[in-house]
């Protein structure tokens, strides 16, 4: 690899090839050992079929000027995904759609005499609201009698977390952050309620599957050459699909329509805020926008309507679920909603802490929206203003931020049950803290409220 060529650290497990960046562009090397499988993928019509149905990321064969090593068969330049997200950042429906996509791809592959040799949730990314398989090298020629080698991985990456989210608590998706190869089935089995044993598909694919793993854990069995008939394989995929389809999640006791209604804005204030944010966005370049604390996604929509590639983060899985179900529908703008606790954002994890990127590594965004957020960080989480300013300056080039004063009823609500230990939470202190990292471009008072909107541009740190 030359100075301008950098291997992507998450791409190392599969000896069929790897992904690297060269001169700012992303390439995938297909190794000679994978030649037969790659040629079959392309020649059989499977690739074309999957790409035309938006199930697989498209690529073109490329000729980057890199030192060609002996392993290289061909170089591919895949379609670029604007924001890489991870399963522990997805809401229930995103994980479920990714699971169904994986099974649909596997069914389609079998039609073309190929099979998926892995079923990692990390191989799926969302493009314009659609889950798509990212890894062109996930396919292998199907041999008659061959079991699905990725069955365990599918159960751990998809079925177990979905069942836990559906039957126990939606926040258990965060177990995926700790268990990068999916939730161990014995753990899922012990956490799931007894009634899941009455569901034949969950009894089979999670509880008995976990028992089998435990039974064989300390035994050496020669598994080479064990056969599964084609109809058995199709039946297995069909059973997994039906298990996934039957899993549902909705926030307890609420209807989507009235889940969000609790703001202290008057209509005039809301309209005024929307107009000012739109006005600020119109002065900025169309690029990547991160809406932090996006809630119902009103402001994400305003940014997306202006051509920005928007990721809408929220700590509440219900808000993310709602946004995912509503955005990107026919004729609507597209936003990628993700679950994120900004006070503990996704870290760099996996092998050598480099396999999965932290939030910071996936930035900076061109613009960050931090609307009705500052009081949650400063007061609910005791974060000093200068630390918030410093962190936000690492996330973006331009910042649209709203200051919510202590006199605001939402702040009063946060202070109602605790001592006010925030004498420095003032508009002057806020402006002073942010002036260390940003240049103030504009500021406007939100009509009919005590709040202020700021447009700031990042600048080099001053002493």
């Amino acid at each position, binding site marked *: 690899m030359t100075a301008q060529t950098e291997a992507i650290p998450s791409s190392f497990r599969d000896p069929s090839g790897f992904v690297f960046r060269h001169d700012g562009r992303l390439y995938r090397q297909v190794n000679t050992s994978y030649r037969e499988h790659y040629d079959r993928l392309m020649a059989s019509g499977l690739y074309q079929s999957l790409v035309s149905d938006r199930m697989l990321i498209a690529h073109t064969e490329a000729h980057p000027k890199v030192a060609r090593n002996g392993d290289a068969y061909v170089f591919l330049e895949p379609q670029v995904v604007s924001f890489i997200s991870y399963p522990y950042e997805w809401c229930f429906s995103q994980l479920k759609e990714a699971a169904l996509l994986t099974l649909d791809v596997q069914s389609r592959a079998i039609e073309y005499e190929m099979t998926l040799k892995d079923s990692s949730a990390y191989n799926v990314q969302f493009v314009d609201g659609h889950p798509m398989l990212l890894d062109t090298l996930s396919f292998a020629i199907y041999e008659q009698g061959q*079991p699905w080698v*990725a*069955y*365990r991985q599918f159960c751990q990456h998809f079925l177990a977390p979905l069942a836990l989210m559906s039957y126990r608590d939606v926040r258990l998706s965060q177990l995926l952050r700790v268990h990068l190869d999916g939730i161990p089935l014995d753990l899922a089995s012990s956490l799931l309620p007894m009634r899941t044993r009455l569901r034949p598909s969950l009894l089979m694919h999670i509880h008995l599957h976990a028992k*089998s793993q435990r039974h064989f854990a300390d035994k050496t069995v020669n598994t080479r050459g*064990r*056969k599964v008939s084609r*109809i058995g394989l199709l*039946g*297995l995929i069909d059973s997994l699909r039906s298990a996934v389809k039957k899993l549902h999640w909705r926030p307890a006791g609420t209807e989507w329509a009235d889940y969000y209604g609790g703001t202290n804005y008057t209509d005039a204030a809301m309209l005024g805020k929307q107009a000012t944010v739109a006005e600020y966005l119109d002065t900025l370049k169309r690029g990547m926008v991160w809406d932090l604390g996006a809630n119902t996604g009103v402001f994400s929509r305003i940014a997306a309507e202006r051509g920005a590639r928007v990721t809408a983060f929220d700590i509440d899985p219900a808000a993310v679920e709602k946004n995912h179900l509503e955005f990107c529908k026919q004729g609507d703008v597209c936003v990628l909603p993700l679950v994120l606790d900004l006070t503990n954002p996704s870290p760099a994890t996996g092998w050598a802490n480099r396999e999965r990127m932290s939030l910071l590594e996936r930035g900076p965004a061109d613009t960050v929206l931090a609307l009705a957020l500052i009081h949650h960080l400063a007061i609910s989480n005791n974060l000093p203003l200068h630390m918030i300013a410093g962190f936000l300056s690492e996330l973006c080039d331009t910042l649209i931020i709203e200051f919510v004063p202590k006199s605001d009823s939402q702040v009063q609500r946060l202070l109602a049950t605790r001592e006010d230990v925030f004498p420095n939470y003032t508009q002057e202190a806020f402006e002073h803290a942010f002036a260390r990292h940003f240049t103030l471009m504009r500021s406007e008072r939100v009509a009919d409220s005590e709040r202020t909107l700021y447009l700031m541009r990042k600048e080099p740190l001053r002493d």
Partner: protein
Amino acid sequence: MTLSRLSSGRVLHVLLLAAALTLTPAREAHAYLDPGTGSFIFQIVVATVCGAGFAIKMFWSRICARFTRSSRSDSDRKP
């Protein structure tokens, strides 16, 4: 479900043993994942059960499709 609660472990052991004894070799797959011994053997049992169910499902859907088609073509023939 009483069956699964009382003797699921025993039934599973018998099925796993049967699977381990009766299967014949297939060609080596191009795979880098470890499927896990317990998962691998278990899949062989489960695929047999699911395959039988799937075959019945397919058979039944074809029968239904035939009846639907014939009743539709009957109604199409009506003036």
